[in-house]
């Protein structure tokens, strides 16, 4: 934490790249009335500070033949959430798994091929002795993503 505030240029860079990661630096530079080098340096600085972790494309998994996203809510025997979490992390297809506060003790999102694999994955988790119950939700259509919407004007770096 350097205590340095993100300025207008940083915010513009982030916003424009969130909308389209391939936006040429020249375009951002023109938009901000600064030189391309300024934008380049700012971009590198944002990366070095870890604000920008990288850039990527968002793909429709179904069109790639990759199957369905499934969200699982898992309730476990008290004090066993860490050990169950570690076991879940080994199951193929996992996108994200986490401890949670709320109705469930653990929540996980998987990318699975078909109903059969969804069934076996659910059973696999239910078979852990410390698991009390597994609730399941299957994503319908393609999930809508809006990482581009993050608000970050107020931020202090």
């Amino acid at each position: 934490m350097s205590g340095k505030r993100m300025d207008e240029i940083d915010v513009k860079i982030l916003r424009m790249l969130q909308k389209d990661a391939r936006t040429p630096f020249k375009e951002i530079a023109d938009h901000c009335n600064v030189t391309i080098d300024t934008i380049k340096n700012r971009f590198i600085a944002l990366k070095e500070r870890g604000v920008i972790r990288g850039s990527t494309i968002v793909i429709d998994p179904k069109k790639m033949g990759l199957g369905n996203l499934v969200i699982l809510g898992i309730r476990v025997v008290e004090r066993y959430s860490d050990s169950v979490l570690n076991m879940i992390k080994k199951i193929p297809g996992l996108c994200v798994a986490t401890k949670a506060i709320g109705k469930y003790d653990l929540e996980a999102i998987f990318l699975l091929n078909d109903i059969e694999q969804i069934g076996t994955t659910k059973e696999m988790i239910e078979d852990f002795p410390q698991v009390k119950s597994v609730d399941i939700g299957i994503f319908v259509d393609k999930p809508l993503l809006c990482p581009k919407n993050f608000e970050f004007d107020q931020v202090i770096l």
Partner: protein
Amino acid sequence: MKFDKIDNAIIKNLKVDARTSFREIARKLKVSPDTVSNRFGKLQKEGIIIDTTVVIDPSKIGYSFIARFGIKVKPAYSSQILDKIITISSIIVASKIVGVYDLVAVSVVKNFQHLCDLRETILEMPYVERVEIGMWVKTMELSPQYFLI
């Protein structure tokens, strides 16, 4: 649509770094940059590549945790509500689901007040019947890559 070597290489390269120049990909594949550019356009048009975006660390821009909202709605209104939810500025991903809830939304959250506000915003939408929250502990590993492979 069938994918060939060029399509796969484009997807593979851009997944790791969306700013990779078409010239660089072209050189690796021994084709012209125009070929790569045209293929990229086609992949976008077919809806295979939905978007390109930078991955921002939410913890570096003022967010402190992630929450998952499970939403029950009046039958037949889920699409309409999904369209509204996706416009909320801190939501990362939202989808209709089959199972315990009708909709699921994952959001980055600044603080407890922000969480309450988000919950109320969703609850105030017409035809929303119930909103359940799961707060994710210690998970800040969030990038679109986790949601769409």
